[in-house]
Structures are given as C-alpha cells and as structure tokens.
C-alpha cells in the first residue's frame, strides 16, 4: 500500500488485483463448515444410496409414496404461508420501529427481543393453552359475544401458522428494521421535489430500497420454517405434518437412516434451487440504488 506523504498530491490507494482477494477471510468459517458439516453430513447422506441395498431404492420409495410427497408439499406450503404472514405483519412494525420517537421504538424493540427469550417449548405450550377451545382467546371471544361456538384454533393450519409466526416475527423485523434505518430520509424529500406522490414514493423509491432487506428476512424465515418441527408437532394436526417431523421419526424412531438421508437430500436440493432462483431475481452484491 503506497501512502505518499506529500501535501501536494492526494494519495489514492491502488486497486490491488489479487485473483483470490478476500478468500483468506472466508477460510476459517469455510474450514469449520467443511470439517464439521459437509463431510459428516455427506457421509450420512451417502447411506441413502447404500442402505439397505446399494441403489436408488430410497429415492424411489420417497417419490413413489403419496405420503412423503404430500408432507413435502405441506412443508413448503406452511413455510410460504408463515413467511407471507410474517412479512405482512413485520414490515409495518419494522417501519414504525425505524422512525418512531425513541421512547416508543425502544419499548417495541425491547418487546420484540424479549419475545425471543422465553424457551421455545414454553412459548409453544403457552400458545396451546391460549388457542384451546376452552382457552383464553376463545373464552374472551365468546364472552364478548363475537362468536357462540369456540373456534378451532389449534391442531390445524391456523394453530401452526400462529405459533410459527410468533417465533419468526423477530427474525423478519430485525433485518427489515436494519435495512430501513440505512435509508437516507432525504431521498424522499428529493422524490417529492421531483414531483412524486406519496404512493409513487412508496412504490418506486421505498420498496426497491428495502427489497434486499425483505429478501434477507424472508429467506431466513422461509428456510427456518422448513426445518421446524417442535411447533408444528404441538400446534398442528397430523394432516399438516412437516417433513422435519417425519425425518425425525425416521432417524430416531424407525432408525431408517437411508430413507431419512434421501428425504433430507431432496429437501436440501429443492431449497437450494429456490435460493438460486431468488439470487437471479434479487441478486446479491447489488447495493441500494
């Protein structure tokens, strides 16, 4: 690095053209991942083509069974639904958090963070108690006269969505909030000076600027939802069983590691394919504007 200390010229740091610039920084994390994730998991996934006999029998069983395919579809449906609901609720909250006066935003922020702190099982049981037919929500609604029969809020898709939205909201709100905070408010003044209306400002300035943040939050929530099974197991009915629960049964109860590996690999491949699509659409490395 050349740092000329003359006061007649301003030194410009030269662009160092190294072919693998930055790779060294990735190495520690990569090393960890290769050693303690890629290698052992590959070894296990290998069993999907080796057990009980070498071949693609497990995959044939997976794709040939309506059960597994239905569970697979369920999983993506629920994950998509949860992501959509979380986004719909999380975006206004993140927006509010970014601009509200310090008192309110600090309180709201505190509540968001606090909601992540209770033990996952305790939270899920709490929702079970709240959503039961004899639970607080139904009883309040009946007492207020809004409904006469208790609503079925648990043991079905509604229960799973509510439970998982609760858990995923902070994962959507925090990244979105960070994204909105980095936007310079002056941009909107400039937009209105150029004659843009509120709605146009929203559509053509605000949303494109937060799009990467939305993509990041949505990706995190979607991917996490795919792998969750504790909450769906307690709040959902068996008709919406998720793949993670089935795989857990295969690994820990039926001890069928070949089929479990096959199911896991299919899930992995499909998810990475969706991620690749998302990169094409939103790209990454593209900064705002």
């Amino acid at each position, binding site marked *: 690095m050349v740092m000329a200390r003359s006061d007649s010229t301003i030194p410009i740091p030269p662009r160092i053209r190294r072919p693998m*610039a*930055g790779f060294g*920084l990735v190495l520690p994390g990569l090393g960890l991942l290769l050693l303690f994730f890629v290698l052992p998991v590959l070894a296990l996934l290998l069993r999907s083509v080796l057990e009980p006999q070498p071949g693609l029998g497990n995959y044939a069983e997976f794709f040939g069974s309506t059960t597994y395919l239905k569970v697979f579809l369920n999983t993506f449906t629920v994950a998509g639904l949860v992501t959509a609901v979380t986004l719909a609720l999380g975006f206004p909250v993140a927006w509010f958090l970014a601009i509200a006066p310090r008192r309110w935003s600090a309180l709201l922020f505190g509540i968001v963070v606090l909601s992540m702190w209770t*033990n996952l099982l305790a939270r899920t049981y709490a929702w079970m108690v709240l959503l039961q037919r004899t639970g607080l929500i139904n009883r309040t609604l009946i007492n207020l006269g809004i409904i006469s029969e208790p609503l079925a809020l648990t043991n079905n898709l509604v229960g799973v969505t509510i439970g998982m939205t609760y858990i995923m909201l902070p994962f959507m709100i925090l990244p979105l909030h960070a994204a909105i905070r980095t936007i310079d408010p002056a941009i909107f003044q400039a937009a209105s000076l150029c004659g843009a209306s509120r709605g146009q400002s929203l559509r053509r300035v605000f949303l494109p600027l937060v799009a990467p943040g939305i993509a*990041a939050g949505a990706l995190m929530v979607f991917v996490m939802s795919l792998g969750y099974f504790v909450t769906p197991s307690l709040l959902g009915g068996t008709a919406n069983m998720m793949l993670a629960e089935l795989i857990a049964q295969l690994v820990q109860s039926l001890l069928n590691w070949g089929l479990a590996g096959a199911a896991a690999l299919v899930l992995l491949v499909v998810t990475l394919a969706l991620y690749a699509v998302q990169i094409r659409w939103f790209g990454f490395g593209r900064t705002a504007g």
Partner: protein
Amino acid sequence: MLLDYDRLGALRWLLGGISLAVALFLLLPILLIVALSFGSSQWLQFPPPGWTLRWYRELFADPGWLDAVLASLKVASIVTVLSVLLGLLAAFGLVRGRFRGREVLRALFLTPMVLPVVVLAVALYALFLRLHLNGTLAGFVIAHLVIALPFALLSIGNALERFDKAIEDAAVLCGASPWEARLRVTLPGIRLGLFAAAIFSFLASWDEVVLAIFMASPDLQTLPVRVWGALRQDLSPVIAAASALLVAFTAVLMLLAALFRRSKEP
C-alpha cells in the same frame, strides 16, 4: 416523507396500530407464562384456581436447573463470540472479495439452516464419537457454531452490503490503514447487523434442543434438554417459572442498558 414520523399523516395511525397489535401479540404468551408460573394448578389453566410460589421454590431447590442454565449460558456465550467473529470475516470475504465461486460459497454457508437438524445431529455425533469430542464443551460449541454461523453471515453480510464503502475509503484517504478503517468506521456502521448476528447466534444456541440432546453428557446438559425431559414426563409450571425468571432477568438487563444509554446522552 415516508421516513419522517411527523409528516406521515394517516399512515402513522396504520403503522402504529399494527405495531401495537403485534406488540400485544408478542407479549401475550410471555404474560401467560408469567401468570401460570404463579398459578396453583399443575395443569396449565388460565385463570388458575389459586396463586402460589411453589414452583419457584421447587426451581431453586433443584440444583439441576441452575446447572442447566449455567451450561446453556456458557455454550451460548462462546458460540456467540465465535459466530460473530467468523461471520464477520466470512462476510468481508464474500461481500468485498473478488474470487470465483462466491455465490456457491454463500449458498454453502446457508445450508446448515436448511438441513433438518436431526440429520446433522446424527452425522456430527458419529464423527465426534471417533474424535472423542462427544459430551465435551468443545463438541457442543462446534455443533452449535455450525448452525449459528448462517445467521451471523446473513445479518452481517446484509449490513455490509448496504454500507457505503466510500466512507471506509475516505478514512483510508485520511491516513488510516485499511484494517484501522474497517475497525473504526465500518464496524460501527454495521453495528445493527452485528447486534442482530449476536442475538440470533446466541438464541440459536440457547434454544436448541435436538443437537443438544446428542451432544449432552451426564455432566453437560443444557436447559432445553432438561425442559424437554421434564415436559415428556410431567407437565409442571416449574418450566413456566424458569422461563419467567429468565424473561425477568433479561428485561432487567435491557432496562439497565436503556437507562445507561439515557444517562450518557447529553
């Protein structure tokens, strides 16, 4: 105008209303857990038939719970530090770097989030048995680090992408070395991302139960494992009491932090 609170107009009520609803939504289970921890019924009934401190007494009488909390804290703290560190380095490499295969590496770093944890648990456990890492703190930390790293990378990577590199370059122009510039200009600039990375990494480890079951040993049991065992057998508000205590502890911490920040403001 859209980011100016005072000029929002009607939109302010919409945003505020939704935020209030969501805040109540987020608070509801917490309040219920706290209420249940004082309820006299062993079954999760609300409103409870009576009030009692019995569950807290049970909680404190059993040293196993305290050991589990301390074990969880130990693991989660170490995981958080390492995860943010490794995530920071990797984020710099992936965002600023100029080498081939960045997209592939980025996807690779995400895969621990996608793969069902139980598959990773069995695979890692088999490996650790060979390396004699099972049941050790190091093994526990490594296992949780693997699933925490994607969170750190996503949060920090996004913050770094949004950060305007020109500011860092300007610092270098003013005479700072590149690393000095990163430390004193960029890091504060991405502090929201760092904060999110830390919180997510901590919680990824703190709340994790499947890997923890596999990594546990008689001397090393984290809190979720204990809760899991307790819930399988008997429903007991002791778990509600444990949760309530942790919430209270965190709330106090946050309050102190807020007051501290307030006192530092001119």
